[in-house]
């Protein structure tokens, strides 16, 4: 029996999952290379959305141009974030300090501090309310196929996530810079000894991760119609859950788990009150950690 409402729910779930996945990609990339959680990722996401909105309000260029500018803002904020929150705590290149837990925890806190400062700054500048987005930029145009309804944003987000995944895999496996990213991720000291410029590689990873975060925030903001200073937090938590479920360092794993999360939340809404749907995600996380302590797609030596 074909139940249109159920299929609609599947579509809603997959698109929600893609929203989580977009954010999880950048998150996982940085974690995979440095083995540190970048708590400011949600703020990169929010900054991307605000940067895009400001560009739209000032010049109202075509969407493609806005995207390029958002990417540029993301790249720059990645460099700044690494400079301010990570590099000062990674002063020594010897093996002991690179593997030190203290450094890992210090960067965790410094990135958290940056995230709070950035969020509060933006709230003070723009107010903590939701921002008005010009109607013509919203990615919410309905597209109906028989009894099913899609939004234009769902296709944009799907296309973007797919392109990102393919481009990232190509970059990591077929380019020289990508190889050095994987080398640093796999064994930092080893990479140091064979003469890879670690500093440059780490900055590159941050730039990529931040640009991905910024563009996701902007696209998701246009798709859900919500741009506000605290927007990164909720999305960040779900991306974090997807990353942990996926094994902390596997980008395809994070994407698959993000899709599972979105799908299970939306299908669960059919049977239980929506307020309980969050419980499903955290329940899945718990089950994963109980039965696959390394995550569903984790456990291999090589990160990223």
């Amino acid at each position, binding site marked *: 029996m074909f139940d249109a*409402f159920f299929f*609609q*729910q599947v579509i*809603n*779930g997959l*698109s*929600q999952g893609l*929203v989580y996945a977009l954010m999880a990609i950048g998150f996982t990339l940085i974690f995979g290379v440095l083995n540190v959680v970048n708590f400011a990722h949600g703020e990169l996401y929010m900054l991307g959305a605000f940067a895009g909105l400001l560009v739209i309000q000032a010049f109202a260029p075509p969407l493609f141009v806005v995207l390029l500018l958002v990417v540029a803002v993301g790249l720059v904020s990645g460099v700044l974030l690494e400079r301010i929150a990570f590099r000062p705590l990674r002063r020594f290149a010897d093996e002991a300090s690179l593997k030190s837990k203290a450094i890992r925890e210090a960067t965790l806190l410094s990135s958290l501090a940056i995230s709070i400062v950035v969020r509060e700054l933006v709230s003070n500048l723009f107010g903590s*309310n*939701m921002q*008005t*987005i010009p*109607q013509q930029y*919203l990615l*919410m*145009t*309905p597209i*109906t196929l028989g009894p099913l*309804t899609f*939004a234009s944003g769902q296709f944009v987000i799907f296309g973007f996530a797919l392109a990102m995944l393919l481009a990232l895999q190509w970059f990591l496996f077929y380019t020289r810079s990508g190889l050095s990213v994987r080398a640093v991720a796999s064994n930092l000291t080893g990479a140091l000894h064979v003469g890879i410029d670690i500093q440059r590689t780490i900055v590159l990873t941050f730039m990529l991760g931040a640009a991905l975060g910024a563009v996701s925030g902007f696209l998701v903001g246009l798709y*859900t*119609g*919500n741009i*506000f200073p605290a*927007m990164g937090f*909720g999305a960040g938590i779900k991306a974090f859950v997807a990353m942990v479920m996926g094994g902390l360092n596997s980008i395809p794993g994070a994407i698959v788990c993000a899709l599972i999360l979105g799908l299970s*939340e*939306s299908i669960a*809404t*059919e049977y239980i*009150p*929506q*307020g309980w*749907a*969050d419980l499903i995600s955290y329940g899945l996380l718990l089950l994963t950690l109980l039965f696959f302590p390394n995550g569903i797609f984790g456990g291999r030596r090589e990160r990223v």
Partner: protein
Amino acid sequence: MNNIWFQGGRAALLSLALAAGWAAAADKVVSIGYQAPLTGEYAQYGTLFRNSANQAVAEFNQSHRLPGVRVEVKFEDSKGDAKEGVNIARKFSDDRSIVGVIGDFSSTVSIAAGKVYAETHVPQLSQTASHPDFVKISPWQFRNITTMAYEGPYTANWVHDTGAKRAAIVAIQNDWGQSAAQEFAHGFTADGGQVVTTEFFNPGTRDFRAIITKIARQKPDVIYLAQFYEDGAAFLQQIRQLGVKAPLFGASSLDEQKLIQLAGPAAEGLRLPTSFDLNSQVPNVKHYVEQYRALYHTEPNQFAAQAYDATNILLDAIVKGGGAGATRQSVRDALAATKDFPGVTGITTFDPVTREPTKSQTRLVVQNGQFVPVASTKA
């Protein structure tokens, strides 16, 4: 920028108040205590209350309704915290010049402070506390806001008049949302309607597509929204994107210009009741809105209007309670006798027994990007 205007407005007001004080230096001073969240998470509400209270008192002192008496407001910042509210209540109770208190903002803080006022016998009038238990604390509590117990059935009745028989409810999962959903459902089923589904969502939810799809399956005649404007804007956009055509009714909490700004064309056709219409042509509302704009260079909203009315109701009770000789007891009795008070949020009467206010509400519909009043006889 806003801040500069605000400071300017306040300075103007202060000098006005000072000038009045100068002219009548020998006047007897009667004080009103005002506790509200002036800093912290709810500071934007506290600011609206302070603006309106200052405006109402300045107008009162200029009017010379009580010759030889000058009323002043003493503000205390409760930070939206129940503990602070209790401390302020003790302070105000000890201040013998205070004959009545307005505030607090939330039901939680108002109730905590109210327990002190009940013991020390100070009349307390909250502009916004809508929890059913608030006025049940003691005979000293009053409020200038209708509860959902009034508004829910009022809207249900309106929905029923449109011929709708099956309604779906979408409500935020908190105390207010639950009471709003419940009261609407009561009213609607009492009128012979049927509630096909009630969906609660967690505060902070921004993607409603799963809920909308679930509701669409039930094919309701109307959908009732007990939400705030941030959630409401996202919901309206998404429901139109998913092609659900059922008419939408909302709680008065959605009466915010910002809702229309955010949701754009998706807000068209939304219907909701309100007790304050910014664009009303009624003379006292027009006067209030114009004065407020002139003083603070920003638009008042229904929260500001409720504080303006609360202050005026208390000032009125001070006059009726003996002016210069008013006592806490006489002010309380005058408050309890408030009948047909013509405020900017409608005509207010306190029930002599329950002390619950009744107010006239107006029906609004969103048309061409504006909240427009609907003739009350037809939907």
